[in-house]
């Protein structure tokens, strides 16, 4: 079936079988390999993308359902001028080690910070609980989300 959707602001379409997940569509048909396959059942969160402003496990969502919706993937965060503040903070604070959880983790962080740039540590932990990381103990990730939130709020405050 033909699936048309908006990915990172671009209108994209692909002819895929109905059983294709959004993750498979992104990775195998649209060449967007940022979202990863880690467990394929919604446990690890490394496939996290944002659909119409809400984070979802793209391994659990059919591509067909995403048709007509607005998808943001990790590839859509940086712009021509700069890294997204979350990417900037994650890199600077060494929040990613092997990096495999990174794209999903950053999308979950974005989902949180887009709604609240000054979350408490407890809120950050809650927001990231769907993204498993085996390398970092989540410590530097949480620090990076705090720092990114500060950067985002001051960005938002600009005239």
């Amino acid at each position, binding site marked *: 079936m033909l699936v048309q959707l908006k990915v990172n602001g671009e209108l994209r379409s692909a002819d895929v079988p109905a059983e294709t997940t959004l993750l498979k569509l992104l990775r195998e048909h649209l060449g967007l390999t940022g979202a990863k396959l880690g467990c394929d059942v919604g446990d690890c969160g490394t496939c996290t993308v944002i659909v119409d402003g809400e984070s979802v496990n793209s391994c659990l969502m059919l591509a067909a359902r995403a048709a007509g919706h607005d998808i943001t993937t990790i590839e859509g965060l940086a712009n021509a001028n700069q890294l997204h503040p979350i990417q900037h903070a994650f890199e600077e*604070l*060494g929040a990613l*080690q092997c990096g*495999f959880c990174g794209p999903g983790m950053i999308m979950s962080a974005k989902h949180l910070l887009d709604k609240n740039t000054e979350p408490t540590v407890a809120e950050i932990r809650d927001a*990231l609980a769907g993204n498993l990381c085996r390398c970092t103990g989540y410590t*530097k990730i949480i620090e990076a989300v705090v720092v990114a939130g500060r950067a985002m709020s001051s960005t938002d405050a600009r005239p």
Partner: protein
Amino acid sequence: MIKRGRGMACMWYPIGFTVAANPSAATVKVNTDGTATVLTGTVETGQGALTVLGQIAAETLGVATDDVHVVSGDTDTTPMDTGAIASRTTYVTGNAVVLAAEKAREILFEAAAPLLGVRPDQLEARDRKIQVLGFPAKYVDIATAAKHSENVLGCPSIGSATYNPPTVAMDPETGQGKPFSTYVYATQIAEVEVDDETGQVEVLRIVAVHDCGTPINPMLVEGQIEGGISMGVGFALHEEILFKDGAQINPNLTNYIMPTSLDMPELEVELVDNYDPTGPFGAKGAGEPTAVPTAAAIMNAIFDAVGVRITSLPATAEKVLGGIMELQAS
């Protein structure tokens, strides 16, 4: 009722493999603009090998981390390496990188010495320059020396070396010998809360103080420690592959319970000031030992909180409550 307790555990851990093959080789090439390329057969598995090896090469050559590019992980181009295993990369591959970079630097010194009118052994590499020891104003840029060596003297500034830690085989009867070149040490202290009506253990915080010799990159060492502790927390409280008739019954991340962000305590990480003369710039290693004392510290904290000595891991809530009820009964 919620009961609070604290527990400590210390440990020691060796760097690299026992007597078995443990070598690493490295090649360091200085480019004609003074930057450098390192070839290593190890693999970046998230531990930060590319960064640390780059910093070690940069230090030896007197340049900045950003001046060094590290090429890894291709048997067609990179030299032998025992691999990203056994907390050996910083120490073993790092020593190989130092030796290789020193050879490349030696070529630069040979080229620079006549330009500066001194002997090569009167030179040092610092701040992207080859300068005369004690006379930093007298120098040539590394780029100049590299170009001169390569283009005029016909000698590319490339060094290659292998390092294999010196060990003494263990006696098969008594185990006596020198199985490892060096060891690291650490202490972790855990503070927990135990719900004495459910047996649930909440780890509130862990203080971790580790020795890794010189931290080549303190941020990466902290990352190793924090990640190791998370594995230790899982090992202590939740993680267990269960078998029935030889078949795993929980081979998925729904039922194999590893820590999420909500399950990790607050971590306070410090490094011991230490220096190992046998390591690259005094460094030893950091990967594995970070996961070693966590479970023991948590078990001692549970004992301190409710008097239950856990003798088999993991300390599930059911096991802890069982211990509490046994104590109450006796």
